[in-house]
């Protein structure tokens, strides 16, 4: 469909969102990603039955910890969409990028004083 979305979104392929470990979400944020979103199948329609539900729980857990350590939890998000729904993916990518732009650069990057970098959003799909 070739629907345009912001180029700062880079996708890391995993077989199922059920393969996205808590440590990987932390790793991305720790390394300075301004935002991370996990894109899984629609709930109830997981290609691997229930991996996306596991992923959602993990995302919620990491969000909670982010809150506790004073980092905006919105930097991490979970989205559900069908693999055939290109328009929704593009919309999510735009939405997430906009949200992250408003939040500004990751505090971790600010600490590392590399604030000149453009926002990078990472996706696991």
């Amino acid at each position, binding site marked *: 469909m070739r629907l*345009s979305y912001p180029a700062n979104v*880079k996708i890391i392929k995993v077989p199922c969102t059920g393969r996205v470990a*808590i440590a990987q979400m932390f790793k991305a944020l720790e390394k300075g990603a301004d935002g991370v979103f996990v894109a899984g199948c629609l709930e109830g329609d997981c290609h691997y039955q229930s991996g996306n539900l596991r992923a959602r729980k993990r995302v919620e857990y990491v969000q909670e910890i982010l809150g506790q350590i004073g980092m905006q939890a919105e930097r991490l998000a979970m989205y559900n969409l069908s693999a055939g729904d290109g328009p929704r993916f593009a919309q999510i990518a735009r939405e997430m990028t906009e949200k992250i732009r408003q939040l500004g650069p990751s505090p971790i990057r600010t600490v590392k004083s590399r604030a000149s970098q453009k926002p990078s959003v990472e996706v696991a799909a």
Partner: protein
Amino acid sequence: MTISKDEPKVGAVMVVGAGVAGMQASLDLADAGYYVHLVDKSPTIGGIMAQLDKTFPTNDCAMCIISPKLVEVGRHLNINLITNTEVEGLEGRAGDFHATLVNYPRYIDLEKCTACGECRRVCPATAVNEFNESLDLREATYLKYPQAIPRGFIIDRNICIGCGLCEKVCLAEAVQYNEKSRRTEVDVGAVVLAAGNKIFDPSRLDIYSYMDQPNVVTSLEFERILSASGPYQGHLMRPYDREEPQKIAWLQCVGSRDINRCDNSYCSAVCCMYAIKEAVIAKEHAHCDLDTAIFYMDIRSYGKDFELYYNRAKQEGVRFIRSRVHSIEPKGDGDLKLSYVDDLGDLKSEVFDMVVLSVGFEVGQETIALAKRLGIELNKHNFAVTDPAMPVATSRPGIYVCGTLQGPKDIPQSVMEASGAAAASSALLSALRWTATKTRELPAQRDISAEPPRIGVFVCNCGINIGGIVDVPAVREYARTLPHVVHVEDNLFTCSQDTQVSMAEVIKEKGINRMMVAACTPHTHEELFRETLLEVGLNKYLFEMANIRNQNSWVHMNDHEKATDKAKNLVRMSVARAALLEQLQEKKVEVNQRGLVIGGGVAGLNAALNLAQQGYEVVVVEKEKELGGMARYLHHTIEGFDVGQYLDELIETVQTNDKIQVLTEALVVGFSGFKGNFTTEVLVGPGMYERKINHGVAIIATGALEYKPKEYLYNQHDRVMTQLELGNVLHANGHEAANWQQVVMIQCVGSRNEENPNCSRVCCQSAVKHGLELKKLNPDMQVAILYQDMRMYGLLEDYYKEARSEGILFFRYSPDQPPEVSANGEGLKVTFEEHLLKRPVQINADALVLSAGTTAADTEELASFLKVPRNNAGFFIEAHAKLRPVDLASQGIYLCGTAHSPKLMSESIVQALAAAARASSFLAAKEMKVGGAVAKVDPIRCAACLVCVDSCPYGVPQINADNVSEINEALCQGCGVCVCECPANTIHLAHYEDDQISAKIVALLEGGV
């Protein structure tokens, strides 16, 4: 065993025509154990589909989806490509044919040609480029299109001036000017005819000014204009002045449904949908708010999800004008004035910048001559005559037909028919499976575990798909700087066959042990590149792909710099992962040779019968007491074929076949296992005793139902009935119906509305079929059909024509203003707004027949057992709408009949055969490989905490005798849920190891560009 002289003798098949149908038939047959000679008169395979820009209703790029198939056909060990060749004669009988072929010279030796293109570079002679529909020029020495298979140049001697330059520059010494036509011969057991159609040539119709107005183009020319590899590189321009048009009109039914001008009375079945697609895609290409108008008689969006596509086009502003345009006149500087009579009978005219003629299909003279040489019968439209019970069988035994030569049809229908023709051939030749085939010895795999990573990076331009947006040379040079990279190159098409050859060479030469391709998407191309690795003796898991097209150049088209930067980032990430890839071993597992067919209607029975004829055991599970499904309520087809008799014979044949076991009143209550080794639990009979069936493949043929209307006094008035019920009345009690004076039929009851936006495909023909029957019973009877669009697609159009000449009245109604029905004593009063008179018309009807749509059968539970997806309407979703119309995404499970979408009985039979062909192409190998990218427990740290056991969606991990968790590699689906849940972090998912994923994250965020 006695050997009769009629026994089949040759386990090889000749497929004539290498378009998408011929390619599919060849692949199915070759995978099923037959040697295939694929003959095409063109120097290149691919047919018309290769010329298309996008395909409806998914807007997939046609070349992107066909090109892996081209390569697969070109590489298949058991497909012998014989291009530039015609079949001269065919002697013998089914099972033992002898074909004579005429091989026309290419003047360039395919064996020697490396497709380097030097010959084309120096060629001084030019000709019109047929592939781009004469919109640009090509050299006399040419390759039809960049992805062409076989990959070799050809000299067009009609244009060639014989200067000898190409011969001088050809280092491979492949040019051979003096090559002559040769005659060769092949012996085959069966023939599949997939010779296709040509596009109607509008130059013979002066009213469209096609010959003298450059801005009047055919739809195929327009496909090339839209195509990124077309004459204008995908820029929307009109031919006359290369200006971007602001207003484009499409004229439907040019060369179809026309007895006045061209004698093609049939409907070409695809033009409505491709016109809608072209309008939608043109709008996407345009820089302005492009005005698109489609002039049509009926919009025939009858296929699966087509109506949704049509509705979306209307929302996106495509204008639909119901009118047949009678003339096109030049106006101003290249513009065109259309004159037409609108819906209200008023004469209108409108000026457009460009006009697209939606040209139909036609059987070409060469194909007619071929049919004559092969001795097969053609109908009055020159399409092959086929048997309604076996719609792929021609009049000559052992010759099967598929694709548009059988009748006008779209790609998925052609693909299904191709698989169906393969199934029929395989049933004939099953005793000779694997007798004529070759086997390939792959080189032993080199163990690279002790070697440091040596990565080869191949960056693809994908023509201009990537190279037009991303600075590919910059990405290539960037890749050179990355750790472990020992070789870097960029290719015009990394997927082309010659690139595979050169890749293999460079891998060997430079000792590359991990390959990284930056290109389109692993979804379509991963297997191709993995095969290249296998051929050089490397494990196929030592491959990584960076998606720089679908996830980059296509979606960041407007920012070349950002797209280039992102491509570099993606390449760096993939190189980081590639360095950590490990070789994985797969295990061979036997494939259970039994098939399970769920549903005992016409589709299920045909699938079962064909599989049995192919030599496989089959179990048919039917939930009703009786076999036959919906066909029990059909009495004859519109062609007059006796369904009752056919069904009785079919059931008898199935029940007496000793390879088929039929379980009626059987309910599927459990399903487990994996492709090749499924176990289905069934409760059988009134006693509900439990049966467990082990099988290697499953075919879903659960059918569909007729919608039970809530509208129009149905169930409230005796004389209101559905088409199915009218069929029963006509069959059982014809004289009752003969007394009716007035019958009204209402179309689209329970279809094309808010509740069910889909078209039910078959109801228009039901109405016409029954209307004609009523007229036959009582010629004085007045039959009125109230419709929205009459969707008498393909050859059905002839019956629509007949209905009108028999005096059946057709009135159009608008869905906003449906007819009103009230009781009128024994009869009914039907009132509707007549669209021309613009006033209400009332008919007192003796009977009101509702063309009730098709609704999906209740398969919710079954779908959840089988873990297969269904769409919103409840029909199962195939793996790919165009090219895998009977496969489900879950391997080993296939789909046919109305469980897929509404369709005619003959179409269900074709799809049933197709499902059987796909099943047998999987079963035939008798074994398959499992393992690879699956989870594995490292028992050292396993505490047997059961978290993995609980978390696995498939219940695979078990605690073994050593009291640790163990994962069966044949059952593991490779999702990785357990890996992330394991508190001891002691489960690994091969190919998606922690370090491999982390490497990408770190590479992205550290050392960016």
